[in-house]
């Protein structure tokens, strides 16, 4: 139903020339996959979809598309969009936000682990309320959503955009489960400092410096990233664990206050580094120190570029 409304609205937006581009999702070339649809063609709007696999954060494309954009936005996208508006990277007037109240996105990797099979061997995955059914070898297996949604979806504080132009469905209330979604971080915090250091050395040894984590992030919009700087050479462009670790640490610090915990960085990492453990921890630190949640209020000033006379934080006084 949301899908039908989305297609109608998108078509109208292009036909009436209220936008130059439509950015949304369409079916991917693999099962249980979607892919971004970026188009100026009215006919292409028929391919727009809304389903449990619309993973990407489409706000990532806004800094490179010129013109007015009609953009499909789940809660996480809308927070990234608001964050970009706060940073003046995108004009609110150039956007028509088509809000999708999001019930959470299914993490295929979790399903593969639970079912013990590759996604190629699964016949179907469907969501019904609080339940996700996986059909494999002719049999159906049910899972609770808490077991198969992405961690960042389980922690979601804004499933329905508050900044939008067209609402495509019934708004959903946030029901974050910080305990379940924060298990990885809790696990890390239970380790000693030395154990954690060894663990991160291990994780970072796999990094191949593909920069997918950086490139998929809407908050990373620098035209020249610090890793590309040669004078001085902050980080060696070689995949050895100290440089890989420094890259992640600095990237986290650079996006602090802009990261909305959309979880894309962790999803896209081809070598399974638990990047969200770093980004979510930074997100929580920002909330704790500055009582600030990114992307909630488009008229708020970006956190790291302003100073309040009355700083709330003790360490600053």
């Amino acid at each position, binding site marked *: 139903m949301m899908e039908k409304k989305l297609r109608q609205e998108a078509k109208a937006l292009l036909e009436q020339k209220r936008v130059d581009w439509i950015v949304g999702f369409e079916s991917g070339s693999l*099962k249980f996959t979607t*892919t971004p649809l970026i188009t100026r063609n009215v006919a292409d709007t028929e391919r727009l979809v809304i389903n449990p696999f619309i993973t990407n954060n489409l706000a990532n494309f806004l800094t490179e598309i010129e013109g007015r954009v009609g953009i499909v936005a789940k809660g996480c996208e809308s927070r990234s969009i608001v964050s970009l508006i706060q940073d003046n990277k995108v004009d609110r007037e150039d956007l028509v936000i088509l809000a999708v109240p999001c019930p959470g996105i299914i993490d295929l990797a979790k399903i593969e682990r639970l079912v013990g099979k590759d996604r*190629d061997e699964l016949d179907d995955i469907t969501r019904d309320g609080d339940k996700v059914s996986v059909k494999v070898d002719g049999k159906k297996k049910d899972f609770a959503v808490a077991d198969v949604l992405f961690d960042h979806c389980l922690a979601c504080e804004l499933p329905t955009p508050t900044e939008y132009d067209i609402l495509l469905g019934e708004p959903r209330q946030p029901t974050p489960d910080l305990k379940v979604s924060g298990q990885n971080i809790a696990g890390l915090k239970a380790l000693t400092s030395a154990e954690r250091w060894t663990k991160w050395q291990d994780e970072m040894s796999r990094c191949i410096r*593909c920069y*997918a984590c950086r*490139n998929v992030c809407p908050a990373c919009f620098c035209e*020249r990233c610090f890793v590309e700087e040669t004078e001085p050479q902050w980080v*060696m*462009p070689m995949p050895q664990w100290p440089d890989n670790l420094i890259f992640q640490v600095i990237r986290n610090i650079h996006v602090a206050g802009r990261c909305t915990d959309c979880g*894309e960085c962790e999803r896209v990492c081809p070598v399974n580094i638990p990047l969200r453990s770093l980004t979510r921890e930074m997100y929580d630190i920002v909330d704790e120190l500055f009582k600030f949640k990114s992307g909630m209020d488009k008229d708020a000033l970006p956190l790291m570029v302003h100073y309040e006379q009355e700083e709330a934080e003790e360490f600053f006084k």
Partner: protein
Amino acid sequence: MAKKISKKDIAQLLKTWSQQFTVLAPSRASGVAEMAEWDGKDTSFLDWYRNTTVPPKASFLPPMEEMFRFRKGEEGYQVEPPSSNGQRQLLFGIRPCDARAMAILDMTFEDAYKDPYYLEKRKNTVLVSLGCTNPCESCFCTSMGTGPTDASNVDIMLIDIGDGFLIEEVTDKGKELVTQTKGLKAAPKSDEAAAEKSRETSYNKVVRQLDTKGIKDKLLASFDDEEFWEQTAAKCISCGICTLLCPTCYCFDINDETDKGEGTRFRSWDSCGFSVYTKMPMENPRSEKWRRVRQKVCHKYEFYPMAFDVIACTGCGRCIRLCPVNWDITQVIESVPTKVKGAK
């Protein structure tokens, strides 16, 4: 008379081979599926359908590799080649798509100037392939000149016949190794028939097809079609996943690391997808994303065929599976317009 080995004897076989080779086998122990030094007991990879995430090219062109060391002494600078142990490797469980990719890479590293590091590793390695039984939906090897049980580019091929594998001895190196390996049984004719059936079944399971006929000329004719390339590149995010993890990609960067007059020159994986790849002080010919995407597609499907008569793609499917935005090379190749050159 062909030989065979049962699945439960694979561990023993690898143990035997470990006495004269460093045996590498698919493993998830590091956190990602890649070829790693066999741990002495794990053979769970025999049940895997997918190829490793990190391609076996990493064993010949590692993500990071020492080229030489330099030191400033009293007499000035000295350069020393890295010590090579000449240790022989055996790559067990390489898939035919990845083995063909090695043959494609060989063309570059052998051409004109010989690359010493890559070629030495290739010379010292035996490739033992596991034929695929369940190609994935991202696989399109049968369209790219190979197939799930193609033995053309390995020393030994193992074909799954149910409880075990039929052993195909392909090269002289492979024949020699099989001859001197104890514990391999003779395979009855029925096993050879089963292997033939297995090959056929696997071949037919490859669903994804790609017609590459005439693609070289189509791409040449579309080289200046900016609109087509902009559209094709629209959702690409210019990361390096498709290229770094592609078994036929080989771009590398060279950097020095130094500490107090002593240091090492390394080479490391690089990607034409990165925005700074072609950046020079005064200009960057490929600062625009569509030019980089065009370079990638054309290099694999047009330029490499122009130079070596082979498309630099083996249909392994990694790029399709791992791309953060599901950009699909097969869809792109299918959508290249057929034009008359010069016509707009």
